[in-house]
């Protein structure tokens, strides 16, 4: 037997003197470093340095800039003028707008999301699996695309909806105008509904059916059980989702930019943007002070949210849970089916259809057979700005998503799976960008890059955007990866170590091998995030480093809605392709584990 034959350890008797000799396999240099803790400390310091540069540095530059009287990089003095300028009546209205709009979109979105989640998770509505994919699709479409599509659909003069209304009723009035409070809320709700849906649907699904069965056995009706047991049990998840949705509503940039700014409705994010980009002399100090102030508000909200959530923010991959009670709806199941389809039609098909239609007609708003043309496609394909921004976006997407996920994977590893000193600080630093809206982070980096000493000419290059994207994506990347690590027992790693694999070999052959599906899902998510990012990009781009969202916005501002439609359509296909890849990966993971 091979196993007994291998006792080649020598005498090993009691008389042999203890020796501290070399192990049977030579311990490498790295192992020695590791056993002394030096390699680990260098690693921790490096990680802290990277995170400090990505989060702490722009944050402190934001504060510096809010006190500095001149634009970044110019000599000036320090005063409190920026903060004094914030305290005006106009800004009070802006603050009320910001909060009011966020509430106005969160409440109906939540009601709708609960209803849709209930349909998909707890009823026998046909094709629930497909419906779920369709309902959540709007969340993955860059908001800038739907904003432009709705700008065309809901235009007071030439919008398709109003024209259809006039054609149907023969009246001359236009009931729909998206350039209004209602329009902003409507556009935001299209995103927050699928977002909230994703957030709560699993808690609907994971509920122990016996809790509800017990209520039925006590004599409660089905409806009463739903109200008194199911919804009450879900209250923590719902409250957490509400809080998150409110914060995101206040951070929103695209909706108020497209539908509010043209008609003079301002929120804080657009006011910051406006002060830097649309005034004769950019009011940097004012904008920076405003950004810093809103960040302080966000900090309070994030702390409240964190306390409500206890740090549990994302449910990405679900394990095997209970099989929940399915309510038999009878004939009504076709009504719920139709309702879900209607949601999909309004939030996806309508705007995408508008983009498709818009791309083939000579002028937006004039739809006749003689107006059909492919000119816009030709124009876009010959447009060097388009090609450059497409290359930039793809490059930034690939590099940014990879770098963000690698960084997030390492941070999550250190915070979840080690007991190293400094890991809590790392976790906190990685969370910091979470409370900075994109526009605030953009302002922070604007200062940060301008103030960087000589040999680092990052300002105005594509690297500026890359760093901002990494900072913005890191919190999500960390959450995705730590959720995945949490599912893997420590034994799997320790077993590998005992059986001869080094720390690095274990990391590579066990941990990464097991966590890569989550890595890939997170990668796609981060790529989406970069593709749709507008608020930080608009501040940090310069000639040569435009990205697609910026080019789209410029074309839109120039009134070239037709070319916008062409590019928007192309981006849509990209989004659907990546979403398909992502769903494949999630499915593969669930079936293997």
């Amino acid at each position, binding site marked *: *037997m091979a196993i*007994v034959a291998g006792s080649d350890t020598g005498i090993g008797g009691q008389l042999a003197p*203890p020796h501290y000799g070399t192990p049977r396999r030579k311990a490498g240099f790295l192992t020695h470093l590791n056993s002394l803790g030096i390699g680990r400390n260098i690693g921790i310091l490096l990680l802290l340095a990277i995170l400090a540069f990505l989060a702490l540095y722009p944050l402190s530059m934001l504060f510096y800039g809010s006190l500095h009287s001149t634009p970044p990089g110019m000599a000036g003095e320090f005063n409190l003028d920026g903060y004094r300028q914030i305290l005006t009546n106009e800004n009070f209205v802006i603050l009320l707008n910001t909060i009011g709009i966020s509430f106005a979109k969160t409440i109906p979105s939540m009601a709708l999301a609960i209803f849709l989640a209930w349909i998909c998770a707890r009823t026998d509505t046909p094709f629930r699996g497909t419906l779920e994919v369709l309902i959540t699709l709007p969340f993955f479409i860059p908001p800038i695309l739907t904003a432009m599509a709705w700008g065309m659909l809901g235009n007071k003069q030439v919008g398709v909806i109003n024209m259809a209304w006039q054609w149907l009723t023969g009246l001359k009035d236009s009931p729909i105008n998206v350039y209004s409070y209602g329009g902003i809320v409507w556009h935001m709700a299209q995103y927050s509904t699928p977002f909230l849906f994703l957030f709560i649907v699993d808690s609907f699904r994971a509920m122990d059916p016996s809790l509800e069965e017990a209520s039925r056995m006590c004599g409660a009706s089905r409806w009463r059980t739903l109200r008194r047991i199911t919804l009450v049990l879900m209250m923590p998840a719902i409250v957490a989702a509400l809080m998150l949705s409110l914060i995101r509503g206040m951070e929103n940039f695209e909706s108020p930019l497209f539908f509010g700014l043209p008609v003079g409705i301002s929120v804080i994010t657009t006011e910051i943007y406006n002060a830097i980009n649309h005034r004769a002399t950019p009011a940097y100090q004012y904008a920076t002070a405003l950004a810093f102030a809103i960040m302080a508000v966000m900090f309070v909200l994030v702390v409240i949210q964190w306390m409500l959530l206890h740090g549990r923010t994302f449910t990405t991959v679900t394990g095997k849970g209970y099989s929940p009670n399915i309510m038999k709806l009878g004939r009504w199941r076709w009504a719920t089916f139709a309702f879900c389809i209607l949601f999909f039609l309004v939030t996806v098909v309508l705007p995408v259809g508008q983009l498709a239609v818009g791309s083939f007609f000579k002028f937006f708003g004039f739809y006749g057979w003689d107006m059909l043309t492919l000119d816009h496609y030709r124009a876009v394909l010959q447009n060097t700005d388009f090609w450059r921004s497409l290359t930039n976006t793809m490059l930034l997407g690939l590099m940014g998503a990879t770098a963000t996920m690698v960084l997030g994977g390492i941070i999550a590893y250190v915070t979840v799976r080690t007991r190293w000193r400094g890991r809590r600080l790392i976790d906190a630093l990685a969370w910091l960008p979470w409370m900075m809206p994109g526009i605030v982070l953009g302002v922070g980096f604007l200062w940060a890059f301008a103030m960087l000493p000589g040999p680092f000419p990052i300002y105005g290059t594509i690297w500026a955007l890359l760093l901002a994207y990494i900072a913005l994506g890191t919190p999500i990347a960390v959450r995705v990866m730590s959720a995945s690590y949490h599912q893997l027992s420590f034994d799997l790693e320790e077993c590998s170590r005992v059986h001869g694999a080094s720390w690095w070999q274990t990391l590579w052959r066990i941990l990464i091998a097991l966590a890569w599906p989550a890595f890939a899902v997170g990668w796609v998510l981060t790529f989406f995030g970069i593709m749709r990012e507008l608020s930080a990009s608009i501040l940090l781009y310069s000639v040569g480093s435009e990205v697609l969202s910026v080019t789209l916005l410029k074309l839109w501002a120039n009134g070239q809605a037709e070319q916008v439609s062409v590019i928007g359509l192309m981006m849509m296909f990209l989004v659907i392709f990546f979403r398909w890849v992502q769903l494949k990966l999630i499915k593969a993971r669930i079936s293997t584990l």
Partner: protein
Amino acid sequence: MSSVLVEDVSRTFGDVIAVNHVNLRVERGEFVTLLGPSGCGKTTTLRMVAGLEQNTSGRISIGDRVVSDAEKGFFVPPDHRHLGMVFQSYAIWPHMTVFDNVAYPLRIRRRPKAEIEQRVMSTLRLVEMEKYAQRPAPALSGGQQQRVAIARALVFEPEVLLLDEPLSNLDARLRTQMGDEFRALQKRLGITSLYVTHDQEEAMALSDRVVVMQGGHILQIGPPEEIYQRPVSRAVAAFFGSPNLLDARVTASEARGEGSFEVTVAGNGWQGQARAAEKFEPGAPVVVLLRPENIRVGDQAGNGAPMSWSGKIVQAIFRGPRTSVTIDSAGQKLNVEAPALLGARVGDEIQVSVPPGGAWAIRPEAV
């Protein structure tokens, strides 16, 4: 195969002392079990031998090689200790097949392909899993996963095999079967094994020697029979089953040779002979241990036996192979394991006695 030497080893977590100055030697080819309630430090001790925890004081050697010496700041990481380990959860990597799982230690060591193939298959044959080599690991039952975990721990001919409660996730019937199979394999191959469990029956059935631990200390080390019949303390005695521990005083004591003594003890209304490990002075207080299954009941009891009681049955629980009876004899409760066919019922008067050699006297612990 090598021996394991644990010298004066401690492990503290902050203020908590998990393992407190433990000394232990596992000889080559020996099967030693660390036994104790959860939190007694047995798993921490095993993990320190594995190198998964670092001892805060003391020295650990495997074979003639020191692997950890806290005073000298010397520590060999787990991957350089050449040990096999079976985890409580089995830790079968879900992204690999059975073959890949078992081949992992050999691949890490860069062995030639042909050798890997041959060794993995022969080891899988050893645990009767050769038919499952190409199965994905998650598609195995608990018992099969356990066999794969053992195969993986043995395939590279480790110095020592460490096992952390490997049977605790199996159902009762399978647990006994796997335990017996593993013990047979261990004896056949002569594998030095260090085994952790909280299950006393498992410990006694498998081990050459048992180490009873509590609160980070070793209470006693010895062969299963010695631990069970001749415990050194009340705590060790109480760890197995529900023994009768009666307070008594020594009236006489004589040596029987080989460090064994015969003492005459007297309790409240009874007296008799007991064995002991030390010479007690007359008048010294002792605790007399009576195992419930060593007490004879009714007709078997025999009149005139040196140590006997009579009392009323206050509880009788039928357990299938036997009946557990509690007897009240003038306020003294006695647990007795009686034959299943015992005719007596609750309330009956009954006579019980202890045959010579059935009683064991130990020093009462200072409280």
